[in-house]
């Protein structure tokens, strides 16, 4: 009995050791990539929900093991990055707008781990890739719809923080509106919070008091205010038309699937390297799209928008990238 037991134990030890050695390779062969996401806000937040959605889809297809930490403070972010890297996660997805330099230092300490981070800056070899919500193209198109639809020629815009990724979309929206309606005036406000709907609502009310008849709803709360006053709104990043019936004229949507799927494939194939994934949020890659409520927008406006959309898809029209803080026309 005794000898039998010792053999068994040895076998278990050997087996465990072999397993530990083979596991990463085995996982890669089986096609399940270990992915961890780190978010600074809850997964309901618009921007984050798009990443969460794409990762969950990959998980449902059986391509990845997906774990995530939400609501991680920027000051705690490095620690969480390190923990996942130490655990042998192969791809860490997240957002480093609040810790650009520090996150790159962490990545340098774990060259075997792939990092795909939302960032305002560039990639760093060998393993730090970046993405962002480059949906300035559909934003421009949604601006065309708004510019053609406004009757008071005043459009209100409530933003979170005036950071490049927010400014860029707002500027594209404004340019699109001005392209079809040179008379249009903008009211612009930032609430300096990603999620304070009561405050966003108050900003929206103030703009509607000042004559705005279309609201650019960059934040939760703006469309709610629009519904209460019976004016129209334009969505951003997510499609909220079901929540606000008869209110959302059009929305510029962001799709993270093209970005996420490419990164997962690269990790699975062992070819992941530092790159800028930003372009996969462009319309031509399916990373951005426009949805229009056809019952609220006239056919001729729609035709004009669709013509521009085709030009963008064909590469014949390029929407300007302008990261400057947008300001009111007053």
């Amino acid at each position: 009995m005794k000898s039998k037991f010792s053999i068994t134990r040895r076998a278990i030890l050997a087996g465990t050791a072999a397993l530990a050695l083979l596991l990463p390779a085995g996982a890669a062969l089986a096609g399940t990539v270990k992915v961890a996401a780190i978010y600074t806000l809850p997964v309901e937040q618009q921007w984050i929900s798009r990443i969460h959605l794409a990762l969950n889809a990959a998980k449902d297809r059986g391509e990845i093991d997906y774990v995530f930490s939400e609501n991680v403070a920027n000051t705690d972010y490095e620690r969480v990055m390190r923990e996942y890297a130490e655990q042998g996660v192969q791809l860490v997805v997240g957002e480093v707008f609040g810790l650009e330099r520090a996150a790159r230092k962490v990545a340098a300490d774990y060259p075997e781990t792939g990092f795909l981070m939302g960032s305002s800056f560039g990639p760093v070899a060998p393993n730090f890739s970046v993405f962002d919500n480059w949906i300035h193209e559909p934003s421009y198109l949604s601006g065309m719809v708004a510019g053609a639809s406004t009757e008071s020629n005043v459009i209100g815009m409530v933003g979170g923080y005036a950071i490049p990724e927010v400014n860029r979309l707002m500027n594209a929206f404004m340019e699109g509106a001005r392209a079809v309606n040179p008379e249009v005036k903008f009211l612009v406000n930032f609430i300096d919070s990603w999620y304070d709907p009561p405050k966003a609502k108050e900003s929206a009310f103030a703009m509607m008091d000042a004559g705005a008849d279309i609201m650019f709803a960059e934040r939760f709360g703006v469309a709610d205010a629009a519904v209460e006053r019976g004016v129209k709104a334009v969505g951003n990043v997510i499609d909220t038309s079901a929540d606000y019936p008869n209110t959302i004229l059009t929305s510029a949507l962001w799709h993270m699937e093209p970005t996420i799927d490419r990164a997962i494939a690269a990790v699975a194939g062992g070819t992941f390297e530092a790159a800028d994934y930003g372009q996969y949020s462009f319309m031509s890659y399916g990373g951005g799209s426009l949805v229009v409520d056809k019952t609220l927008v006239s056919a001729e406006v729609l035709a004009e928008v669709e013509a521009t959309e085709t030009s963008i898809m064909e590469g014949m029209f390029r929407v300007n990238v302008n990261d400057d803080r947008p300001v009111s026309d007053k």
Partner: protein
Amino acid sequence: MMDILQILLSESFWAASLRIATPLIFGVLGALLCEKSGVLNLGIEGIFAAGAMCGWMAVWLGAGLWGGVLVAALAGAFFGLIHGILTVPLGLSQHVSGLGVTLFATSLSYFTYRTALPTVTSPPRIEPFRALDIPILSDIPFLGPVVFQQTAMTMLALAMVLLVWYVLNRTALGVALQAVGDNPDSVDAQGLSVYGLRIGAVMAGSALMALGGAFLTMSAFDAFFFGMVNGRGWICIALVIFASWKPGKALLGALLFGAFDALQVRLQTEVGAMVPGQVFLMAPYVLSIFALVVAARRAEYPRALLTPWFKGQR
């Protein structure tokens, strides 16, 4: 300049001011009750979050809007009880305990929310309180649209100002409550329970604070989200000093802050191109600090504030 005058004279501006002030009115009254009894309650920020989550969750589960208000108040009272036990009979540091309650209540609220709703992709919504249209009163020029076309919770907040004033100044309970915050020994000599009065006041005050949070998720908006309290609780702690622990002045302070905030939103769109937006966002806080500096010189602190009292010790 004409623009600013026009804004200040508009009904919609003052209606917005009262709307923004409503959660602060609840919060300042709550902080006032706690401090009147001698207990500083820095749990306020977390109790706001707990009230916001519990009230919203109760409505979402089908308790009805007023049921949600009740649940929020009970949740607030529960955290008040924790803070009360830690600071009154145990006599622990009111600062540390209060901050602990804030961290605990905030995290527990979000933990409960996420445990109950693990897979939501956009925050679930409820049907919130709608703006009232009280016959006759709503038709009064200016005052009608500003005061009487608000939601029921704003009415409740205004009613609470009267109630707290009445209890503090016209009832025996109010006299005892003020005494326990000024001179607990005298209350003890009267044969009243210092512990009971203080814990009771902290619980009642915390219930009011929780209503401030509930206003955010059940009246100002229709969904709960982590971090949406966004510092409103802390403002109340400052406003209560501005108010010199008087309910009427508490209302005034909350309205003043609401007006500053409503004004900055409007100025940001009016002259936003010339001045950085952060200046406007900062303005309500700077002006509050300024008002505080002026008002605090004459503030009458409850004399036993922050001082623990133990039975049998002099």
